[in-house]
């Protein structure tokens, strides 16, 4: 017995089947399955389905109630209608992406817990981006930016969920208080998807470059899912009301300035979603009903508008208002259907916008927010002005640019026709929609007062439009958006590149460019591949963090122990010699001289041991010094003969600074450690016991051959093995590959030469 069919599952299954069908079968599959999902919604009563327990948390895949059901209705409906419009598309990838995207949206709608919500949320982001990318070569960068913003939003959501779940101990998705870091992070994650300024830049950036059919789905699902989750989680949060008002006005203003026809519509999405967000913010039953109804209506008429403009682009290949004009003659059907959408969005009576938009405004009025009512009404007028008057005027009427075009293919017209039909149906029979709403509706749109008010508003706007027609002519401009939020931080990256260039105007997309620029700088300058730089970085870190700690912890140095030491004249002399030979090592230009003076330093140190009365230690030190000097000289024999001085003065200064820092900090270390209270050393044990246990008076010898006899034995073994290895390598090197040595001696170890030698070796075998 099938308990419940998750509509998202239907969409995913369709996506999985698409690669295997062709022709008519494909058409049936693409349109039929989403429609099937639509009807399946009617079959099952409210309740929680698909409940699992994962990792101690209850995951609910299917929470069916009125709120989720109404969104699911419009999403599945839109899936079908959108597919009709997209039937002619040959790339199956587009269909698959759209279906997975729709499935993700449905999954989010039905998610009863935050964890599965997050998973579907990410599925939406990652599938929808392909619809942007199918828009062609130029959409790549926009799509990537889109995806990055959504990933960031998704992770904000995740962070919020983790905090929220940690505080409440439950991941159930119900009303979330907009307080505390968790609540705010979740809200930010939601608002990014809703396209609220200043986090909206991805929307007008990505939608206009998406594929013609893909944009229909894009404009339907992402923002409306955000509206749903806001209605579910944050209803009645006052800040949302103001966010919504800002969105409504903001979108309209930018839409009026915009010339790219699809970008204009993209700004309108922000504006219309603003109405919904405001309604959610008001939070009364009427306002929430209004927001949901508006989302329902908006998905359909915005899709219709997008389809209309998509058809224009599809047939003419032009995207800007200034390049178009007079198309009503060649594309009459498109024009007619587009106007249905245009009048809907403006709230003309007997169309869907009329019955939904006014609900939000009435909701705000009933809740006594007169200012909100005023601003939203203003935004509504602006919508009428730009979408219904300016855009069609520029594209279909206006100056005839003599563009050869015709109405688009049948399936596209049919898709538009279906959408237009539903717009009119809802406008005429509002109860169809009202009975689906989450709260009982006691609202009648067709009152004389309301009708009169709308007509007044529309007429006044129309009058204004005719009077200032010449001013509203589209101009071929790029409007600069408020992306300055992203800009500011990036300016200095730009300056880094070329200080003379000065400050440029940077836009949203430049944020990424700035990052890549910085990245390039780092990989060229810091990541130079020089060993020296690597070591300088490590040393500087150690030194600087020590200094920082010493400052913050207020370490004090007492120099008492230093002062108490008395130096004899001969000791002082040896010190001077040690220092001067060290300096000589650094200053000598000749390598041999430098190595020899390094050896001198060692010898003087050994001499110091003699003065301190440890001749055996001094002898060992002498031996080691002699051997190491000889080894280094031997190494030089195999290295290239010349030694070019390439160090630039500036880099020399850093070297000196780093060396000095090392010297100072090391001295500091030593003095600190001598001052601090260390645990008892085991030296006294050896001094006491060496004669008793091992019967020897030379303590050092006793330690080496008796107390640590095993150590010494293994040490000798290791040394012998190492010596054997070195001997073997030297012998091997002489025997073969003369070219390598030759090349090495000339200092020109070229890849080709080596490959040649290898080749010769291989053939000779």
């Amino acid at each position, binding site marked *: 017995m099938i308990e419940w069919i998750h509509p998202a599952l239907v969409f995913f299954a369709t996506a999985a089947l698409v690669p295997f069908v062709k022709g008519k079968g494909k058409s049936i599959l693409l349109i039929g399955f989403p429609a099937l999902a639509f009807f399946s919604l009617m079959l099952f009563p409210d309740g929680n389905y698909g409940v699992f327990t994962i*990792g101690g948390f209850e995951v609910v895949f299917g929470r069916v109630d009125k709120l989720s059901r109404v969104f699911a209705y419009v999403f599945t409906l839109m899936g079908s209608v959108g597919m009709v419009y997209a039937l002619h598309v040959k790339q199956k990838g587009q269909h698959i992406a759209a279906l997975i995207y729709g499935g993700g949206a449905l999954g989010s709608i039905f998610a009863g817990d935050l964890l599965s919500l*997050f*998973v579907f949320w*990410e599925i939406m982001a*990652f599938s929808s981006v392909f619809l942007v*990318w199918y828009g062609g*070569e130029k959409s*790549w960068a926009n799509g*990537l930016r889109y995806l*990055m*913003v959504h*990933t*960031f939003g998704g*992770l*904000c959501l*995740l*962070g919020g969920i*983790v*905090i929220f779940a*940690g505080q409440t101990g439950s991941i159930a998705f119900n009303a979330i208080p907009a307080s505390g*870091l968790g609540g705010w992070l979740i809200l930010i994650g939601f608002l990014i998807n809703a396209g609220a300024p200043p986090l909206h830049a991805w929307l007008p950036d990505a939608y206009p470059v998406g594929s013609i059919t893909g944009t229909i789905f894009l404009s339907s699902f992402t923002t409306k899912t955000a509206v749903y989750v806001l209605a579910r989680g944050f209803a009645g949060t006052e800040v949302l009301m103001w966010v919504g008002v800002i969105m409504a006005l903001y979108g309209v203003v930018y839409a009026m300035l915009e010339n790219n026809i699809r970008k204009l519509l993209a700004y309108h999405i922000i504006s219309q979603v603003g109405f919904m967000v405001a309604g959610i913010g008001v939070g009364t039953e009427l306002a929430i009903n209004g927001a949901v109804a508006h989302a329902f209506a908006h998905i359909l008429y915005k899709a219709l508008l997008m389809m209309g403009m998509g058809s224009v682009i599809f047939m003419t290949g032009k995207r800007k208002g200034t390049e178009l004009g007079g198309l009503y003659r060649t594309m009459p059907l498109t024009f007619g259907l587009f106007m249905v959408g245009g009048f809907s969005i403006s709230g003309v009576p007997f169309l869907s916008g009329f019955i939904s938009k006014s609900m939000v405004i009435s909701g705000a009025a009933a809740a006594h927010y007169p200012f909100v009512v005023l601003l939203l009404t203003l935004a509504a007028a602006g919508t009428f002005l730009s979408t219904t008057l300016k855009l069609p005027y520029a594209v279909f009427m206006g100056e005839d640019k003599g563009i050869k075009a015709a109405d688009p293919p049948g399936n596209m017209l049919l898709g538009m026709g279906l959408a237009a039909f539903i717009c009119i149906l809802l406008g005429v029979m509002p109860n169809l929609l009202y009975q689906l709403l989450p709260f009982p509706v006691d609202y009648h749109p067709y009152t004389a007062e309301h009708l009169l008010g709308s007509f007044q508003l529309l007429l006044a706007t129309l009058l204004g439009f005719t009077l200032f027609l010449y001013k509203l002519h589209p101009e071929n401009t790029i409007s600069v958006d408020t992306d300055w939020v992203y800009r500011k931080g990036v300016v200095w990256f730009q300056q880094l590149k070329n200080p003379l260039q000065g400050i440029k105007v940077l836009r949203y997309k430049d944020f*990424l460019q700035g*990052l*890549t620029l*910085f*990245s*390039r700088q*780092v*990989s060229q300058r*810091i*990541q130079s*591949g020089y*060993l020296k*730089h*690597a*070591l300088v*970085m*490590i040393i*500087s*870190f*150690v030194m600087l*963090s*020590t200094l920082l*700690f*010493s400052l913050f*912890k207020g*370490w004090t140095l007492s120099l008492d122990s230093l002062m108490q030491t008395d130096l004899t004249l001969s000791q002082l002399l040896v010190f001077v010699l040690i220092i001067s030979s060290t300096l000589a090592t650094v200053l000598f230009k000749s390598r041999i001289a430098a190595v020899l003076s390094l050896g001198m330093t060692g010898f003087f140190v050994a001499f110091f041991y003699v003065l301190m009365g440890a001749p055996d230690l001094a002898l060992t030190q002498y031996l080691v010094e002699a051997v190491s000097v000889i080894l280094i000289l031997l190494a030089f024999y195999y290295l290239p003969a010349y030694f070019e001085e390439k160090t630039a003065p500036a880099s020399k200064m850093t070297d000196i600074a780093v060396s000095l820092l090392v010297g100072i900090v090391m001295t500091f*270390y030593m003095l*600190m*450690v001598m001052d*601090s209270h*260390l*645990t*008892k050393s085991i030296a006294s044990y050896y001094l006491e016991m060496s004669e008793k*246990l091992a019967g020897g008076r030379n303590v050092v010898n006793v330690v080496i051959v008796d107390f640590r006899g095993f150590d010494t034995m293994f040490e000798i073994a290791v040394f012998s093995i190492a010596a054997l290895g070195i001997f073997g390598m030297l012998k091997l090197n002489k025997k073969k590959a003369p070219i390598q040595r030759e090349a090495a001696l000339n200092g020109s*170890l070229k*890849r080709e030469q*080596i*490959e040649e030698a*290898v080749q010769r070796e291989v053939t000779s075998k």
Partner: protein
Amino acid sequence: METALPNIQLIAILPEMILALVACALFVAEPFVPLEKKESLGYFSIGGLLLSGFSLVFLWGKEISTFNGMIAIDFYAIFFKMVFLSISILIIMMSFRYIEIQHINLGEYYGLILFATIGMMFLPSATDLLSFYLSLELMSMSLYVLTAFMRKDPRSIEAGIKYFLTGVFASGVILYGIAFLYGLTGTTNLTGIHEQLAGQDLSSSPTLIIAVILMVTGFGFKIAAVPFHMWAPDVYEGAPTPITAFLSAGSKAAAFSVMLRVFITGLEGSHDTWWQILWLVSVLTMTLGNVVAMVQTNIKRLLAYSSIAHAGYLMIGLIAGNNVGLTAILVYLVGYVFMTLGAFTLVILICRKGVRGDQISDLRGLARTHPLVAATFILFALSLIGIPPTAGFVGKLYLFNAAIQGGFYWLAIIAILNSAISLYYYFNIVKVMYMDEPLDAMPLSFSPALKVALSIMAFVTLFLGLYPEPIIRGAISSVKIFL
């Protein structure tokens, strides 16, 4: 005085002893195996690794501390030993075809991998600074040689020398830190150090802080954290690709496995000091790693930066220092190992005679010629970014959770921002594979073993994303030793 030899339980090092014997046998057998049959040595070493893994059965559920408290066997150690054994098996399976193409199919290659594995396997068992240092050196020395193993290729030689010189410098720094700790507490045993530090208030003792700074520096080098990461891109680029993968997965996991022991078992008392340093290092590591990866054109360098960035994420768990954080590190490491190995497998696949195959542009149109391989890469990329349903997501979820529970909100937010940035460069590769036209037929260098290895990696990456329960349980019972 009667000094008896300490009571040593040799069974504690049974898996390592088996591996050492196998490795020695390899070195002896290698001259007698003809060039075209060197592959059999590889299968022999896989057999050794499996046998060693099987011997873990005898240690299961035991709590042993032996060699004067230098080596411990507990669930934590066994957990990591299993991880390292699987890494080595996968690395050898990835290598067969590659080392044949590069003319380095010699028995020593496998032998050195085994020795490096022995070093790694001792690390999570090390409960003493000395045994820790020795194991670290055993691992590192083998890796230095392996890095320069393509000795006819100047890039490999350069990488080997760079790795060696900076590596021994870092080892010296660790040793210096050990000396300070020993001087302060009079013991090298981690539990002993903990007791000593607990007995007295040393929170602002200069010696302790200096020791901590030096330890962080040394470990920072081994896990390739910024600013000690400079070697990583060059070494990753020059080394034979399977060895690069070995460095990125094995060496990093090994360093983390012992870092937890040292910092939690040994230095927990001074958490207040070291989280500040680690916080800074972690933020630098995540940010620089991700941002610089954006402009790389060489995949191996790109993955090097990505691996740097992941070290930054992993450090979050240690900074949080709570139970969730330690669990998160283990969970994330397991996922990370499989997904990063998977990403490197792609580079191995496109390498063939005459084609180095380490440029991103070499992947053009891979989705057309080999759709399945391209799809597998998307899986690894998603996991590396941390998108469900993959292993990387589960790990990141735990890490963020740890940061938030520990009150490190900023760290979590910075990590989130960085994850968004990382999307850019992984999907840049996806774009090249899916949107560009292929240049030629692009034959891939598959071998049967490689196919099996790649399927295992893809399966585990996906499986742990869908059903992470077993690994989470394992991690939780592993970190119980720190409670």
